[in-house]
C-alpha cells in the first residue's frame, strides 16, 4: 500500500455480503481492491459467487439498497443515487453475448449506451465508429447479430461497452465457447486496451497471460489474492479451491525466482 498521495482505487470492495432469494449465502464478506490500470483475474470454482460479485460492481445487485458491505468505483460508493454514474464507469461484459446483444443491428446495439447517456447524434456516431474500430470490427454497422459468429458477437458486446467510455472493464468468462483462434484474437484485443480490467474466468491460461494479479474466490469469500504466478503455481492451493495449476506454469515453483515477476 502506498503512502502519501491519496489515489482512489479503480474498484474497492469491502465486506460484501449477499444472499440469494432462497436465503442461501452467495457472498460472505468479500473484500479486495483493484488499482488503476491493473489487469486482475478473478478465479474460483463454480458456485463461488463470481458472477454475483460482478453484478454488484455495476449496481445490478442488490436489487434494493442498502445491501451489506460496500462497493466503491473510482471512490464513488455504489448506491441508488449513483447508479447511472457507476454503470457508465464500469463496463460489464456478460457471459452470454446473446444476452447483451439485444438490438437488431450492430450499429444500434453499440449506439445503445451512448444514446442512453443522452449524447447528440454526431457524438454517438463518432463513438460507435471508434468503438467498432478498437474492437477490431470496423464496418460491421449494418450487420445483423444472428449472422455473426460467437467471436464477432463478443467483439460487438465489447464495442458496445467501450462506446460508453468506461474506466473499468469487467468481463465474465470472455473466452467461453470461443474456438482457439477466437480466443487468441480476443486475448490480443484485451492486451491492446489499456483500461483497468477485472476478468472472471475458468480459463486459467488466460489469467497467466493477461493478469498481473489474481483473486481466488471460494464460498463467497476472497480466499487468496496475490501475484498471478505465485498464486496459480501453488498446486496445493489450487486443488484446495477446486482449481488446478495451469499448464503454462507446470515448471514454475511457487516460491522460485519466476514467481515474483
Amino acid at each position, binding site marked *: 500500500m502506498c503512502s502519501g498521495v491519496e489515489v482512489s482505487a479503480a474498484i474497492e470492495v469491502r465486506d460484501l455480503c449477499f444472499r440469494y432469494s432462497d436465503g442461501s449465502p452467495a457472498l460472505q464478506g468479500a473484500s479486495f481492491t483493484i488499482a488503476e490500470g491493473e489487469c486482475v483475474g478473478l478465479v474460483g470454482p463454480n458456485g463461488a459467487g463470481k458472477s454475483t460479485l460482478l*453484478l454488484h460492481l*455495476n449496481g*445490478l445487485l442488490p436489487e434494493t439498497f442498502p445491501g451489506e458491505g460496500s462497493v466503491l468505483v473510482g471512490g464513488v460508493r455504489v448506491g441508488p443515487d449513483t447508479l*447511472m454514474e457507476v*454503470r*457508465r464507469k464500469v463496463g*460489464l461484459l*456478460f457471459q*452470454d453475448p*446473446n*444476452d*447483451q*446483444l*439485444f*438490438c*437488431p*443491428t450492430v450499429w*444500434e446495439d453499440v449506439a*445503445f*449506451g451512448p444514446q*442512453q*447517456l443522452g449524447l447528440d447524434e454526431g457524438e454517438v456516431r463518432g463513438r460507435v465508429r471508434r468503438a467498432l474500430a478498437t474492437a477490431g470490427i470496423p464496418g460491421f454497422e*449494418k450487420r*445483423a*447479430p*444472428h*449472422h455473426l459468429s460467437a467471436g464477432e458477437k463478443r467483439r460487438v458486446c465489447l464495442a*458496445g*461497452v467501450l462506446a*460508453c467510455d468506461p474506466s473499468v472493464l469487467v468481463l465474465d468468462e470472455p473466452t467461453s465457447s470461443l474456438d482457439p483462434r477466437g480466443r487468441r484474437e480476443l486475448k490480443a484485443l484485451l492486451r491492446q486496451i489499456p483500461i483497468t480490467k477485472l476478468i472472471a474466468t475458468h480459463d486459467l491460461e488466460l489469467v497467466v497471460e493477461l493478469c498481473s494479479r489474481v483473486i481466488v474466490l471460494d464460498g463467497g469469500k476472497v480466499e487468496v489474492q496475490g501475484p498471478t504466478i505465485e498464486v496459480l503455481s501453488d498446486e496445493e492451493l489450487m486443488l484446495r479451491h477446486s482449481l488446478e495449476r495451469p499448464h503454462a506454469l507446470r515448471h514454475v515453483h511457487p516460491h522460485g525466482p519466476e514467481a515474483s515477476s
Partner: protein
Amino acid sequence: MRHDFLDRYSRLDSPIHRSSAAVKLVAAMALVVGTALLPPSGPIPLATISLLLIAVAVASRVPWWFLVRRILLLEPFVLGVAALALFGPGGWRLFLFLIAKSTVCLSTMVLLANTTPFSDLLRVLKSARVPSLLLTTMSLMYRYVFVLLDEAGRMKRARASRTFSRQRALAWQTTATVVSQLFIRSSERADRIWAAMCARGWR
C-alpha cells in the same frame, strides 16, 4: 446460425435493396391495398401488376426459385379460403379471381420482405410514431427468434436421441416439455437482457 435462412436475401446489393425502406413499404402498401380492393374484372389490371412485380424481382437479384418457394409455401392458405367461395354464388370465376388477387398481394409482400432488412422496416415504423412498447417487442422478437429456434432445435434433437418409442402420446408429452422449457429459458433470458440493458444505462 442454422436459421439465418429466414433472412438470407434481405441484405443483398441491388437497386431495389438500396432504395429507401420507407419508399418500399409505402409502395408495397399501396400496391397491396389497391390490388386487394380490385373489383372482379378482366385480367389486364392483375397482369400489369404482375409484370411490374416480375420486373422488380429481376432487378432485386434475389434467386427466383427462392421467391417462388416462399410464395408456394403460403399459397395453400389462399387456396383454402378461396375454396370456400366455390360454394357461394360467385363460383369458379370468383374463386380464380380471388386466388389471382391474393397471390399478387402475397408476392408483393414476399418481395418486400426479401429486399428490406426487418431492422430497416422497424426504423420506418418508429418514424411513423408506432408506440415504443410495441416496437421494442417486435425488435426483441426479431432479434431472439433465431436464438430460440436454435435452442428448440437442440432440445428436440437431444430428446430424440433418447427416445426409443414411437408412441404419439409420448411424442406430445416430450414436445410439450420442449415448449415449456423454451418458455422458461426465454423468461430467464429476458431477465438477463434486462440486466444488460440496465448495465448500459437503460432507464
